[in-house]
Structures are given as C-alpha cells and as structure tokens.
C-alpha cells in the first residue's frame, strides 16, 4: 500500500521535477505553480479583476465618464455598441451604463467573497483547532454547533435576515462568513485530531509548551496549506451565495450595484433587453471558476501526492 503510494507519487512527477532538489514546502509549491499554466491564467484573471475593482472609481470617472448611479433616461435600453466606452455593454431601463455598474459590482462581490471567507477562515480555524486539540466537552459543543448549522437551509435564513434588516456589504460579509465556516472547521478539527498524536507534539508538550503556543506554532503551520485552498474555494461559494440572495432582492440593495441585483432588474426586461442578462452572470461564473481553478492548482502545488489519488 505504502509502496504503491510512493510509486504513484514518483510516477506523477515530471522528469524536470524529479531532478530538482526539494527546497521546502513553500518554495516547492511555488516552483510547481510556475509550471501550471491553467492555474497561472486563472490567477491572472483574478488579479486583473481585483485591480479593476479597486480602480473602479478612477476608470468610471476618467475613462467611461459615467457614475454607477448616473441615469440618462433618453439613452435607456441602448444595445451594446462600441461607439462610446460607456455603451460597451448597453444601458439598462434607467439608461445607466452596464459596464460601469459591472465594475462596481465586482467591488461588492469580491469584497464580500474575500472578507466573508476570511471571517469563515478565522472562525473555522479557531473552532476546529481548539476542538480537535482539547477534545472533551468543548469538542462536543463545537460538533453540536456544526451539525445544527448544517441542518439549516442557509438561503432561507439569509432571507429572514434580509427581511428584517437592510444589509450593508460589511455586515453581510460577516454574516455569510459566520455561516460558512463549517467545512473549514471540520477539516481543521479532523487534521488536529490526527496530528496531536504525533511524536513532535508529544515532544513539545514534554518540554512544557503551553497549549496556545503548541496550537499556534506546531499544529497550525501543518494544517495551513490546505486551509488556504479551502478558504479560496469558500470565496467562490460566498460570491455565488451573495449573487443569489441579492438576485431575489434580499441582499445588497440598490442603488449599490452588485452582480446579483443587476440581474433582478434584467430578469424583468427579458424581452426588451436580453443583452442585460449575460454580463453579470458571466462575471460571477468566470470569477468563481477562476477561484476554484486556483484553489485546485494550489492544492496540487502544495500536496502533489493528492494529485494521483484525486
């Protein structure tokens, strides 16, 4: 069995890689990443999106010459055309530039995705690590919370929150992160439970290492690589959730454009302006796809053994 695994690993290594001397986890991972075109392209797309989202104000003012809420009723339902930059993707029912709104939508989606995933990472890591390390009562509590949250249809809960409160992006991100940490916590807990029986943990404990330090310096670095991958994928999932809940009208409220609430309006003018449907959906799809691809690529880069069994 073990020999099989080793053989599979060696078999999956490319010749150049077999010749290269190992230089530590992160450096090896970086090297593998540099030789993985799919992941690099996906990463480039995401970096470009982030850059464009950050520069949204600058671009809107100096290039498109339109704000995201700027209406010009006379130009409503203009079909996409290359005549002027702000008409690239056409205009909606109020004559607002679809391109500019898409830019600002990227801002909302990426902010909510990344900030929510960071929240999920922080909660999931703390809960999983402590539950796996201390076991006992605390572990029972964490497992109970995870199973309870797991049996709630999240979108229904978000709907209730959306009815009661008008959600701003920051609280919305915190809420999504506060509900989305289950997978990360499960992984951290499982890994911690198996790692805490290792000799080096025993050694650290023997020389009087306090639990906090042990978790932070000895266990955390060992589970971090795949946690990063999980968080990356979480960003994508949160972007999908945000767009869905905003689409049905209980997430980000207009006039702040988000990819989800742009589609709410577009859905009402299917016959008149079908071209409004495509860009926001494609934007969500491409972003999430690239995040998944980067997550996948990172996983392969950090732990090439997984590649052969996957």
């Amino acid at each position, binding site marked *: 069995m073990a020999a099989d695994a080793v053989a599979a690993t060696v078999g999956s290594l490319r010749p150049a890689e077999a010749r290269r001397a190992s230089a530590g986890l992160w450096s090896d991972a970086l090297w593998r990443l540099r030789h993985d075109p799919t992941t690099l392209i996906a990463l480039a797309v995401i970096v470009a999106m982030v850059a464009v989202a950050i520069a949204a104000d600058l671009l809107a003012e100096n290039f498109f010459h339109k704000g995201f809420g700027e209406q010009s009723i006379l130009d409503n339902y203009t079909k996409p055309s290359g005549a002027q930059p702000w008409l690239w993707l056409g205009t909606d029912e109020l004559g607002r530039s679809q391109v500019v709104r898409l830019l600002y939508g990227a801002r909302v989606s990426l902010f909510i995705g990344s900030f929510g995933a960071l929240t999920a990472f922080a909660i999931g890591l703390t809960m999983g690590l402590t539950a796996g390390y201390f076991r006992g009562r605390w572990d029972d509590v964490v497992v109970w919370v995870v199973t309870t949250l797991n049996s709630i249809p999240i979108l229904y809960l978000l709907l209730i929150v959306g009815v009661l409160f008008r959600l701003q992006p920051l609280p919305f991100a915190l809420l999504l992160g506060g509900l989305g940490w289950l997978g990360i916590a499960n992984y951290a807990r499982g890994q911690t439970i198996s790692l805490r029986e290792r000799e080096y943990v025993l050694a650290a404990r023997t020389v009087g290492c306090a639990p906090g330090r042990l978790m932070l310096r000895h266990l955390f670095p060992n589970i971090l690589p795949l946690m990063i991958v999980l968080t990356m994928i979480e960003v994508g999932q949160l972007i999908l959730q945000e767009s869905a809940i905003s689409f049905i009208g209980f997430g980000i409220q207009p006039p702040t454009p988000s990819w989800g609430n742009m589609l709410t309006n577009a859905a009402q003018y*299917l016959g008149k302006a079908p071209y409004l449907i495509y860009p926001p959906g494609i934007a969500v799809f491409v972003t999430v796809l690239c995040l998944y691809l980067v997550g996948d690529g990172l996983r392969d880069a950090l732990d090439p053994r997984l590649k052969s069994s996957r």
Partner: protein
Amino acid sequence: MLAGQYDVTPEDREGLRHSLGLDQPLPLQFVAWLWQIAHLDFGKSFYFNRPVLDLITERIPNSLQISMLALLITVLVGVPLGVVAALRRGRIEDHAIRVLSVVGHAIPQFWLGLIFVLTLGVQARFFPIGSMNAVGVDCGLCWDRFWHLVGPVTVISIAGIANLPRILRTEVLEVISQDYVRTARSKGLRERSVIAAHILRNALIPVVTLFGAILLVFFNGSLIIERVFNWPGLGRLTFDAAVTKDYPVVQASFLISSVLLILSYLLRDIAYAWVDPRVKVR
C-alpha cells in the same frame, strides 16, 4: 403600511398589539410561540388570512415534484459519469467530466435558470417560461406538467450532477484496487458484471452520505429556482411571504424546511445502515 395615511386610534393600536401578543415580554412571546408550534399551530398568514400550515402543506408536494425528479436525474446521469471517470482515469473522458463538474459548481444556478427562460422560453418559444401548467390546463400527471418541469429540474440537477461523479470516482478507484475485485475478474466474470455487482455496489455506499449535501443544494435551490420559473412551491411561498412581510409564513416555512432537511438527513443515515451491514446503529 396604511397606518400613515389613515388615523389609527391609540385604542385600535393597543388592541392590535394585544391580539398579536406583542404587549408581552419577548421571552414570553417566544414561549407562547413554541407552545403553539408544539401543537402544530403556526398561526394565520397576515396576507392570505388563512392558517399557515394549510398554505405550506399545499405547497410542499409542488416542491417535492422538482426535487425528487432532480434527485432521480442526478443519480441516473451522475452515477454512470462517476464510473466512467474512474474507469477511464487520466483519459479524455475523465478530464471532460472533471471540467464539467468544476463548471457546474461555478455557474450561478439562478442565472442558468434565467438563461434557460430567456433562450428556450422567451426567444425560441420552445419551453414555457414559468408556472406549473399552461393557462386553462389543470392536471397533475400529464404531458403539460412534464413540459413545465423540464426547466427547473434541469437547472437543479446540474448542481447535483456537478457533485456526484467527483465523489463516486474516488470511491470507485478505491474499490477497484481491492482483492475481491481481482478475485471476481480472475474467476472469469464479464467486466460488466464485475463493475455492476462488485465495484459499483461497494463504491455507492459512501456516496449515500453525499445525498445530505445534494439535498441541501436542492433546498437552497428551490428558493431561487421557484422564483425564476415562477413555480408555486415552498420556496416561492417563502419568497412571496418575505416580500409582503408575512412573518408567520416566513417563520413557519423556515422551521418546516429545516425539519424536512433534518428528516432527510435521518432517512439518509437509515439508508446508509441499510446498504452497509457493517454499520451498526449504536
């Protein structure tokens, strides 16, 4: 809403507060609510002025039609794809299925529904753009209903199909290297019966647990998809109630959908113990 336009006397206001129990302290209100729930009394809808339980029980079968069909299609399409991906590991089929599942995960479900409605409904006029039956037709089991089901079921199944083959592939690869598969092959069984009787039967066992995740996808999906396809199910009822601020309905449907989800988890666990005799209920 009308309170601003019409004069509401303080007495009326007090009377309304009293009749809804809003003059009680919050903990007491909660206990009273729990007591009602324990008697299966979910109160009356503000909007329809009908018992909430009636409204919800009317809608559940409609939602089940979509999710049961979607589950069926997920299994019918997902299981063969998973087996093919494992058997043709590393070949073009495997890569295609992997791409398919990543794409299926990344596509926003509601947007796929919108595209379906736009292209095949509004533009091609091939499929209906929503609701359960054509105008003037009222039937439960007929061609018309089936035609209306195609859109929502397709869109929801795609989410399930993105999930299933990936997991099944890992399981099949696990089972394929077992001794009993080699034994089955070496005693001269045809490849087809090795796959069906020895590999698939064992590989499917862990997949049963996956149905929990798939059902969650369906539950969340129903809220969105029923809105897109204007399907009068539980999700649509919840959405409408949320828009009209019909709190008793929103509360009850959240509670009932959670209970339904837990029930289906329970069914999943029972099914797991049933298909795998090694699992003993402690």
